[in-house]
């Protein structure tokens, strides 16, 4: 007998013939799925039919035609021109999106720098520094963002001077002013030939990139280093600078000037904008600091010690060994914090900065009605932004995973 156990010896358990319809897993699975879909579908139908009825009863209609209507109000802050009584609700929507993206962009840059610094401060050997960073983090994280926003808004009002006593930020040159209403700075007026300077800048950037690659390659091959910083800076500054001068300096500045009861000219950032920016940076940098700290701590201690052993100086250890390995742990939470910045910038509506929610979901909704369309469009914008950012995150994660074998 070749096989140890033959069919005659082994006890075969016959599969149960009786098919219990209610105990069968597949049947139950299908049943529950149909049940869920039915409940959700019924709920959706119920809400939709109620809505249709309610709209009918109030004599309202559903549709996006209102976007072509003229908006009767003027947003306080806008990056593109807007004329009340001429431009449409669609343009209001665009202005809101731009304003949201604008403040989010600045806040993201600010909070990234501050967050990284704080995260590194938290790990400082200096007890005092790390405790100061800790206090900052705890205060910023445990006080609601909305309170912080309103607080900064009122502090700016209390601290900054009135219009007539505007603070001159350029030390008497009368270029930039800060007062109770906001910040006024010169704004560049682009000349005709400025595109040549931009072109030169682009060429210089490419040249610097190639130069860097050459230096890197040379170092990899021969081990000899070549000064990098100074030549790059020279290329980047001198060449575009020369072109700029040769084309006759095609750039002038529009300088804010006090005329009557306000500043005219230049660019201005209203008080609400400054308060919101400060609060967003203050609040989110605390969260980023914790993420940075956790990321750095997640790097194996031996890595740093080994780098020290081969003779790298402490700051080189940090920038060449620790940080690159900490980045995969830092970037995902950082990107979701960026998303939070975009979402939380919607609190602008509490202090009257004209972001998407304030200008579209509040003011436009009050003047134009069409709640469903407006709420849907606003939420849609945030969803698309969020999906884009999480898409970027996925790409990053995939890349990091590949590098990690």
């Amino acid at each position, binding site marked *: 007998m070749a096989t140890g156990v033959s069919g005659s010896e082994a006890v075969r358990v016959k599969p149960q013939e009786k098919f219990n319809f209610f105990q069968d897993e597949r049947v139950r699975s299908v049943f529950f*799925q149909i049940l869920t879909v039915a409940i959700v579908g019924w709920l959706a139908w119920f809400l939709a039919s109620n809505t249709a009825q309610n709209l009918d009863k109030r004599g309202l209609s559903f549709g996006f035609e209102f976007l072509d209507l003229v908006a009767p109000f003027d947003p306080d802050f806008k990056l593109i021109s807007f004329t009340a009584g001429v431009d449409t609700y669609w343009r209001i929507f665009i202005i809101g999106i731009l304003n949201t993206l604008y403040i989010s962009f600045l806040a993201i840059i600010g909070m990234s720098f501050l967050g990284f610094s704080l995260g590194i401060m938290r790990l400082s050997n200096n007890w005092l*520094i790390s405790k100061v960073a800790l206090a900052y983090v705890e205060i910023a994280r445990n006080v609601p963002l909305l309170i912080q926003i309103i607080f900064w808004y009122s502090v700016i009002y209390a601290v900054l001077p009135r219009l007539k006593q505007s603070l001159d930020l350029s030390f008497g040159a009368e270029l930039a002013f800060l007062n109770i209403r906001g910040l006024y700075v010169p704004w560049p007026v682009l000349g005709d030939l400025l595109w040549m300077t931009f072109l030169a800048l682009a060429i210089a950037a490419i040249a610097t990139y190639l130069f860097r690659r050459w230096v890197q390659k040379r170092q990899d091959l021969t081990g000899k280093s070549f000064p990098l910083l100074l030549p790059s800076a020279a290329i980047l500054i001198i060449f575009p600078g020369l072109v700029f001068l040769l084309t006759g300096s095609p750039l002038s500045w529009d300088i804010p000037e006090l005329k009557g009861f306000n500043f005219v000219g230049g660019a201005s950032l209203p008080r609400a904008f400054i308060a919101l920016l400060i609060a967003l940076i203050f609040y989110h940098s605390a969260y980023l600091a914790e993420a940075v700290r956790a990321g750095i701590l997640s790097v194996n201690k031996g890595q740093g010690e080994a780098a020290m052993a081969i003779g790298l100086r402490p700051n080189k250890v940090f920038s060449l060994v620790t940080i690159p390995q900490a980045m995969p742990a830092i970037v995902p939470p950082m990107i979701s914090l960026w998303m939070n910045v975009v979402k*939380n910038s919607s609190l602008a509506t509490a202090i009257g900065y004209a972001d998407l929610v304030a200008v579209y979901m509040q003011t436009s909704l009050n003047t134009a009605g069409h709640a469903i369309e407006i709420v849907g469009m606003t939420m849609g914008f945030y969803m698309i932004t969020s999906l884009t950012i999480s898409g970027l995150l996925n790409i990053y994660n995939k890349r990091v995973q590949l590098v990690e074998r």
Partner: protein
Amino acid sequence: MAYVSTKSTPSRKPPLNESTPLGWVKVNMFSTLFSSVLSIFVLIAIFFTLKSLLTWGIFDGVWIADSRRECFSISIDGACWAGIIAWFDSIFYGLYPRDEIWRINLGGILLVIWMVPLWLPRVQGKVFIGFSAVALYPFLAGYLFSGGDKGIFVQVMISGAIVCIAALTINAAIGYFKNDNLANFIIQRLGKNDATEKQQRNILLGILAACVVAVFIWQLSWIEKSISWTRWGGLFLTFVIAGVGIASALPGGILLALGRRSKLKAVSILSIGFIEIFRSVPLITVLFMATTMFPLFMPEGIVLNKLVQVIIAVCLFNACYMAETVRAGLQAIPKGQFEGAHTIGLGYWGTMGLIIMPQALKHMIPNIVGTFIGLLKDTTLVSIIGLFDLLNILRTISRDKPWLGLHQETLVFGALIFFILCFAMSKYSRHLEEKLSTSHK
């Protein structure tokens, strides 16, 4: 021939001693030149910040005054705390009638009584305590706070809640002092130790039913004055919204997380869609949606008040965040746990409820509490849509005539309240995590 030193080698300096205060300062603050410079700079900065804060808030602060103008006349640079003192009751209770404030206080005390046994040692049935606090307490508190006529369902729930809190308190006392539970205690007192389990259960159920009926009859005559939700406000309203949100976010989040990981495609797709939609938009848009669109969703005749709309929005929103937290905890559970549970014959709900969830939730305690803290902080957003929560009351003070323009003091006070609450929660969650940790250290 030997080279022997005739002099003893001078001994090296001892390493910096961290155990003396001076040595500690030297090691931790002045180890290098750069570090020393930084330390001195930071010390100076801290000194001036603290000095100006203390001068503003305490030394120059005005505590007794009738108006902001009077504050200024006493101290021009100091904080005017008198405004907060004048509005103290409103900050905590909103516009709630002053004669009826005891109802809010009683509600708070009942909650404390309900929950305290959770922290007492030797008390049995802690899971039931938590569960009943979520399921029954809201009815009792809701009636205490709003008053008016009770529906029959609410009457039954209130009776149940009253019986429950009495039983839990006695149970806690018996557990704490005698290391026993209420059920056993009653059985022993009745001398029915030898009865079968079924008989014992019937006796207990009989007593329970008798108590509920007795309380039900008593509460028929218990009627409180009706107080409209529009008078709710201040920290009380903040707690109501946060409390309902917290109580429903965790169960909702668990269900959504299970739905998301479900093998049933339809369930998981719907859960993912629901979670991702709410997570990708700001809370304020959800609140606006609730106040502008819920009225359109409702069938004719049903009008939800603003508070209910807001609470629904907060619950939905936070359930989705909680779902992601719970999911992260579920993902950390090794597969062997599922397989082990199946081996001993547990079904889906048995596996999840008895094996997986307890571990997953324990892992995620700091994150769950973090979500709760976020929820508490987010309740301030309801002030934007016009509810008089703590923040909105504080902002009202600065619009009140005598206190016109009183901004910083009120906001600092609000920030302090939130800081204390949130900081305590996060510290407690760390403590709880360490206490419940079963891993080897």
